[in-house]
């Protein structure tokens, strides 16, 4: 039974989308129920896999592999077999769980809307794409799933978005479309270079990584590695919305429906980080090391710049977008350090930022549903009419600014520990970001929840029973990782150790 669970996880949402296609357009509530089932089952399966996962093992587990496309003469007279192959290792597992959680809670958080059936069709297609990105073991398959997220996102923003939806949907499409070009070029270039070394062509990530690890120094030139890494890194900068390619993210968050903001902030924008770990660190560690200073500088610029920009934002959603960019800058710093703490901190921060973004965008969505706005100055005194929502918002903000005992804290500690070991000066500048985060988050909190409650905000309802589910689950996980980091650390440690041994750090 464990044999096909990964396929089920990836394709159940798509199946749900297909079924939804046959539901009459007038049906009320049915679309959401189907979407709930189609995202809950993968969540359940993901946890079953988690329960059976052997974190002492470093390779892929629960692998499934079938030959899919045979391309003759792809490399000299060799045939390229593109595989439908899925698998999870210690690196993919946290992302799998994050995806499962955020996408399910996203459906739960979705309010009734116009054209609900179509919304959930696109949403479920998106979910399949997201799962696929983290589970694919074949580069072609990964790219296919990555592209698969573009189309539904275009429609989800373009139909259900805010007043600039058309423009922002197109911006999202073009930015991420161009990012995937860089990813594709570097992936396939890696595959062909590995083929030169091994004599056979494959797109399997593990085989390529092994080929690169074993290749004699003169077989693959440093120049090639550096060049390809630059292309890949450029793509990741766009994909992860790093300065100076970040402008699509605040726009997307501002214009998306809150469910989509949850998924974008929680999962979609973490794909770039996953690629950075899987391909950058996993296959091209020497190149990462070579460019470590550049990466660290870009990381610190993002930490500080995005935090400063976040301070002057008038809209909660834009503020959170910049806050996320600032946090992901910490990931770059951790990766650049290329040591156990730094890499671990990078993964911790990615997952933590995913959880926090999911929670924060859910809460802001809930506030918006009640007050009709996310402009910080238009809110105020929310703690009186909705104490529970305000309380959770405060908790999320504290988690985000790195309060000890929550996931943000341990992530920052680890990443900066790694960072200080490698780049003391830069890391010291980077810590400014932590201080700035406290300023912009607490200031925004103060203007939102405290102070006098304006007349039209009085009498608004507090959290409904169903809304407790996402809030409690997110906060519980954020605290769990904060107080018991090994729950995440045990999963990823083995993979990270293998990376670190390879670079001799």
């Amino acid at each position: 039974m464990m044999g096909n669970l990964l396929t089920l996880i990836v394709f159940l949402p798509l199946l749900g989308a297909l079924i939804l296609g046959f539901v009459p357009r007038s049906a009320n509530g049915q679309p959401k129920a189907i979407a709930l089932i189609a995202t809950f089952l993968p969540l359940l399966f993901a946890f079953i896999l988690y329960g059976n996962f052997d974190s002492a093992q470093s390779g892929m587990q629960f692998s499934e592999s079938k030959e899919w496309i045979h391309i003759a003469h792809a490399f000299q007279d060799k045939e390229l077999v593109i595989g439908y192959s899925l698998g999870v290792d210690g690196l993919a597992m946290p992302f799998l769980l994050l995806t499962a959680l955020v996408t399910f809670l996203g459906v739960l958080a979705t309010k009734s809307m116009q054209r609900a059936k179509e919304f959930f069709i696109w949403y479920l297609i998106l979910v399949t794409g997201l799962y696929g990105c983290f589970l694919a073991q074949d580069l072609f398959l990964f790219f296919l799933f990555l592209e698969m997220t573009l189309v539904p996102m275009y429609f989800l923003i373009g139909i259900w978005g805010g007043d600039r939806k058309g423009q922002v949907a197109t911006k999202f499409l073009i930015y991420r479309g161009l990012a995937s070009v860089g990813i594709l070029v570097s992936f396939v270039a890696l595959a062909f270079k590995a083929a030169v070394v091994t004599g056979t062509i494959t797109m399997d990530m593990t085989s390529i990584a092994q080929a690169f690890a074993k290749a004699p120094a003169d077989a693959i030139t440093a120049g090639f590695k550096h060049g390809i890494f630059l292309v890949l890194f450029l793509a990741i900068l766009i994909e992860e919305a790093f300065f100076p390619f970040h402008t699509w993210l605040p726009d997307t968050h501002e214009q998306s429906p809150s469910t989509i903001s949850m998924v974008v902030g929680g999962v979609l924008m973490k794909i770039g980080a996953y690629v950075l770990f899987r391909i950058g660190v996993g296959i091209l560690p020497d190149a990462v090391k070579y460019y470590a200073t550049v990466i660290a500088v870009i990381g610190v610029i993002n930490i500080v710049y995005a935090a400063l920009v976040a301070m002057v934002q008038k809209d909660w959603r834009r503020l959170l977008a910049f806050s996320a960019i600032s946090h992901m800058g910490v990931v770059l710093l951790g990766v650049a350090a290329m040591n156990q703490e730094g890499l671990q901190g990078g993964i911790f921060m990615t997952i933590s930022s995913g959880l926090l973004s999911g929670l924060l965008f859910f809460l802001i969505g809930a506030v918006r549903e009640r007050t009709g706005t996310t402009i910080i100055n238009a809110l105020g005194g929310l703690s009186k009419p909705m104490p529970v929502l305000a309380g959770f918002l405060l908790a999320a903000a504290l988690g985000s600014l790195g309060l000890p005992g929550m996931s943000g804290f341990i992530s920052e500690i680890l990443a900066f520990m790694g960072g200080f070991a490698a780049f003391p000066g830069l890391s010291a500048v980077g810590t400014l970001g932590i201080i700035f985060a406290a300023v912009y988050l607490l200031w925004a909190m103060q203007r939102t929840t405290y102070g006098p409650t304006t007349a039209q905000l009085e009498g608004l309802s507090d959290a409904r029973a169903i809304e407790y589910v996402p809030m409690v689950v997110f906060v519980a996980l954020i605290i769990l990782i904060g107080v018991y980091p090994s729950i995440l650390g045990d999963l990823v440690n083995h993979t990270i150790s293998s990376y670190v041994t390879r670079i001799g750090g």
Partner: protein
Amino acid sequence: MNAMNGLTQLHFSDLWHVMAPEMILVIGGFLILVLDLFMSKESSRRLSPQLGILFLIAAFVLTIRNFGIVADNAAAGGDMINLSNMLYVLDDFGNVFKLLFTAGTAVVLLMSIDFFKHNLEVKVAEYTYLMLFATVGAMVMASALDLITLFVGLELLSISSYVLVAMRRNHAKSTEGAMKYLVIGSVASAMALYGMSFLYGVTGQTNLAMGASTMLQLWDQFKPVLVLGFLLMLVGFGVKVALVPFHQWAPDTYEGAGNPVTSFLAVVSKAAGFALILRVFLWGFSRVFGDIYIYLVILAALTMVIGNVAALTQKNIKRLLAYSSVAQAGYLLIPLATLGKGSSIDNIWLSLGQTVFYLVAYLFMTMGAFAVLTVVTRQAGNETLEAFRGLWRRSPFLAVSMAVFTLSMAGMPLTAGFVGKFYIFLGTINTEMYWLGGLLFATSAIAFYYYFGVLKAIFLKDSSVETHEKIQVPASIGVTIAIGLIGTIVLGVYPDAMMKLLNGLHWFGQ
């Protein structure tokens, strides 16, 4: 074949052996021509296209039979099956293209049945036999090995096409498009012929199979002249397949011609152009490709960039598809261009596979898109993007179909276009032309803008009030769309069958 004193005496059986599909279409064309004289106008209008489709199917079946003949011959280790000292050959390269041409033209005629109902000034019998003759021209372009014969094929296709574009006689744009096509097309033919004359001048041969080896010996000595000949031919052929900067006729002609004729130009005529390009350049120049491929690379890059950028501002859907088809020609040139850096013979098989796969994918998605377009623009009464507004409410079937075709052209996963692009892309990386592969996908990302503009009109906008009624899809158009849909999705999800077929081919008879 009886060879006497170096001359070859041809018998009908020899002809039939090598060019049965061509002959059946010629017979069909003349039959329709003659029958038209004896039939009433109504029955001619009704029967001609049906007869045409029937003959195309016959040619299709005969071509399938030819695969077997080539395979048997190859298994027996025989020489390439040919007529008159390699004047005309029977090989799987030609067979594959003939399948494409006959299938494509059959679908075009199927679409035309609806077109005739709404364009009474079009003479159906003439239209039909011109289509058949044009197809024969295309087949000759894919199978001849002699420059003169190739040129005759090219002219047969071109001249038939000029007339086909002008068929809507009461239509000013149709006449304008035909005129432009005629003038530019004739100049292009002249250029190509001029280029061929240089090859003849140097080698003393018009036959590619024999001329190539002579040329190889004389290459260093006569390089400037031969490269000039190559470039002139490239310009001439480039006009036919609408490569930038020789593409200016395409938008006007595509816009002016009736929809089925436009799709014929976009698919069959373009595929024939590529067959010719491959035939001439692979046979004539493949061993000196390292010296000349750079021109192909430049043209491919220019075509991808300018085709896609020019499409960004188009509001007329047919002009948009015209520019899109220009851009696709750029993608299609890449497999040939990569041969300049590929050292092994295997690269040729890869390049041929890529070209044919993409052409087949292109056939399905383009035919489908034009079929949808026909119904939608007719109902709306205009050919702008506005015609597609709110289509998802008026006809979910047309909306979803158009979405699939557009996404395939944009190169989105699980469609034929995606696999085709990826397949071509592999070749660029294999030969370490990273920037060209990057450009292929980067220009596709730019193209998202206008392809998604179509989707935006279909799904994101509500239709204007007056066109809110449901759209009726005529049966012939419905079948065309269904063929396009099935092809696009099957090739996208399960390309392996097609890949295996391509791999098993005896491209040049061996």
